[in-house]
């Protein structure tokens, strides 16, 4: 996952560590590199070190060890105001005593741009986020979504090559958030800026990013494009954290090439793809996505191992059906199916048989 020595890297973290108190490392040995124009999301639970990484990049925190490079030069000793990095804050941090236009003009003023040039850039930035008519308003007179657009415009108005966003959509309601996700990605790609985006919302990470870095415990657990992250999680944490996931625990009984057989704790056997297991007898957590579980008898692979299951609950969600099953002692085994004309509606209490393709079932670390 670390691409050290990458000459195309625009932003690079080299063996970066961070500790606040000299006892606990908040960021442990971080290696990360971004090519120009990439939209990278740092995703993780709170306290995983993602925001600290962002703040180190912005210059508000100093790395305890290691080096951060921007465009090939070390920025460890460059103060934040000389880094030229645009930043969108969680609560927008729009200056309440200035109008929207003055807010946008601020970064241009400190760069000593002429008045006409400033006005032109402010206008262009406001038009870019469809807020052209709001230049004279105060931030307090705007709705949350509008403030968010202004914060975005303010971070972009001085045309930085790198923009950092710290959970910028956290305060918005769902519908607005989805809309803004689209807006932000559109702008980032149109302007060709490199973006580092921090969030704890995995949907946001999956829909917006070119690549996602999943943080936990001060380390990047997996760095991959969204589809790969979802379909091919490299460890149990990522499998659990991204999307909905079913976990079964057991012991590896045989490995041959890219399939292995797992003996579950209740004695049943299943086929899986070995990812984090290497030898027979190792404990493992097996991960299967709910939509990859098959319970239509006609489609089950006769050669593969199947499991007996009991339907506990049927949840109607409109576009999909969701079933909660009891499988091998796990009462939270979830299965999803599309609400198609031929969809099977299972009833609570029904006994069924389930199975899956071995490559969809990943044997990960215990």
């Amino acid at each position, binding site marked *: 996952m670390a691409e050290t020595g990458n000459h195309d890297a625009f932003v690079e973290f080299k063996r970066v560590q961070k500790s606040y108190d000299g006892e606990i490392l908040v960021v442990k040995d971080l290696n990360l590199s971004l090519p120009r124009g990439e939209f990278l999301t740092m995703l993780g639970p709170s306290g995983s070190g993602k925001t600290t990484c962002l703040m180190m990049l912005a210059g508000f925190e100093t790395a305890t060890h290691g080096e951060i490079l921007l465009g090939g030069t070390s920025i460890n000793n460059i103060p*934040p*105001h*000389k*880094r030229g990095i*645009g*930043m969108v*804050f969680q609560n927008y*941090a729009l200056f309440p005593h200035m109008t929207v236009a003055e807010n946008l003009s601020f*970064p241009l003023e*400190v760069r000593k741009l002429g008045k006409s040039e400033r006005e032109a850039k402010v206008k262009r930035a406001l038009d870019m986020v469809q807020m052209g008519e709001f230049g004279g308003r105060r931030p307090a007179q705007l709705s949350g979504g509008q403030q968010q657009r202004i914060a975005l415009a303010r971070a972009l108005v001085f045309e930085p090559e790198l923009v950092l966003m710290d959970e910028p959509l956290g305060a918005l309601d769902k519908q607005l958030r989805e809309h803004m996700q689209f807006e932000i990605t559109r702008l980032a790609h149109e302007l060709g800026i490199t973006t580092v985006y921090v969030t704890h919302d995995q949907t946001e990470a999956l829909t917006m990013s070119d690549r996602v870095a999943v943080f936990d415990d001060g380390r990047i657990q997996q760095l991959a494009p969204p589809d790969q992250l979802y379909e091919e999680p490299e460890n149990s944490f990522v499998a659990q954290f991204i999307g909905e996931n079913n976990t079964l625990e057991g012991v590896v009984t045989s490995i041959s090439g890219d399939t292995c057989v797992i003996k579950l704790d209740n004695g049943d056997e299943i086929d899986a793809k070995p990812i984090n297991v290497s030898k027979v007898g190792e404990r493992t957590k097996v991960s299967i996505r709910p939509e990859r579980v098959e319970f239509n008898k006609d489609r089950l692979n006769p050669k593969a191992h199947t499991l007996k299951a009991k339907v506990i609950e049927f949840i109607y969600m409109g576009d999909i059906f969701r079933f909660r099953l009891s499988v091998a002692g796990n009462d939270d085994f979830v299965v999803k199916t599309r609400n198609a004309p031929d969809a099977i509606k299972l009833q609570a209490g029904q006994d069924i048989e389930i199975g899956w393709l071995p490559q969809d079932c990943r044997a990960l670390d215990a």
Partner: protein
Amino acid sequence: MSDATQPDTAKAGPVLAADGTPLKRSLARSLRVQKMRAMALIAPLLIFVLVSFIIPIGSMLFRSVENGMVEQTLPLTVVELQAWDASTGELPDEPLYAAFVADMVIAIDAKRHTRLGTRMNYEKTGMSSLFRKSGRQIKKLDPATDGPFKDQLIEIDKKWGEHETWSVIKTHSVAITNGYFLNAIDMQRTPDGAQAQPEDKRILITLFKRTLIMSMIITCSCIALAYPAAWLLANLPARSANMLMILVLLPFWTSLLVRTSAWKVMLQQQGVINDVLVWLGMVSDASRLVLINNQTGTIIAMTHILLPFMILPMYSVMRTIQPTYLRAAKSMGATNWTAFWRVYFPLSVPGIGAGSILVFILSIGYYITPEIVGGTKGVFISNRIAYHISSSLNWGLAAALGTILLAVVLILYWAYDKIVGIDNVKLG
């Protein structure tokens, strides 16, 4: 609309409640009990404030123009004085003297003539003794039989034969006077209208100016000292901030008099500060600094005493300024100074404003500290007011001075509202 029982906003006319009464009236009725309860809760305070604050201030305002004493003590004389034209330069005629004796006999009986003398003495020195001494002689006269009185009175004291004596009485015989206010601004009421006081009696304008200028200096030095302290308080972690806050509040737990006296110990020429400076060799023993009984002393001591009133409002405003504002400014390329000056400082102005109003208004009326450490050069107008209330007993002048002080504060408050906006002020 008459048969409408449902509120119908589409039609014109007031919205009706379910029973047909206008909704507004129905709402008012349902809220009445709540309002009554609220009123009952604030009633004790309201009455207390009325009795202890509004009424005394009203009475003070009235006292600054009220001047019924001459008319009450010498009713007949005042009528005669109306007829007398002082501008001719001639003495009044016999009827006035007769009226005066008649009035005085009654006044002397009631022992009111000395009070009138004291009152007239504010306007012209010597009047007090004139009334007291003449009183003893006039007492023996009978207004009905012993006339004519003009020559007899001049015989008793030749001042009764002076034109000025009578013109002073006439000038101040009106029931509502501007005399106190004229005095308060170093002028006097004369038969020829308002005129400046003689040079040696002009002191109050100087005192007003000094009070204003020194209050401004004190306010400014409070701002300068309080700003960094408040910033530190607002930005430290809660534990250390609480500790610091206790230090800020500590002076409130000590008597004002003790603190001021402590400054006397510190500042005097043989005091701690001078000793240290001499010991350090920064000041020669022969030329010790004069830090007390002058304006410097008053400014130092009052800045110290009023400092918490500046720190607290500043702190409460600064606490609400999010640190991300500064980060945002820096991320956009602002240096530390620019970020402070363009972003933090403007956001902290409401705190400065609130603190300044508080400190300025408190210091403009401060009394004890200037009295103790101010000497003669460092006293404020309030010390003069206190003098007139407790020593010279010229309450009218004290009231006029107080009224002017009140007006100055209100004008400044108004000006502040125009410039900064009073809704920008936050006290917590």
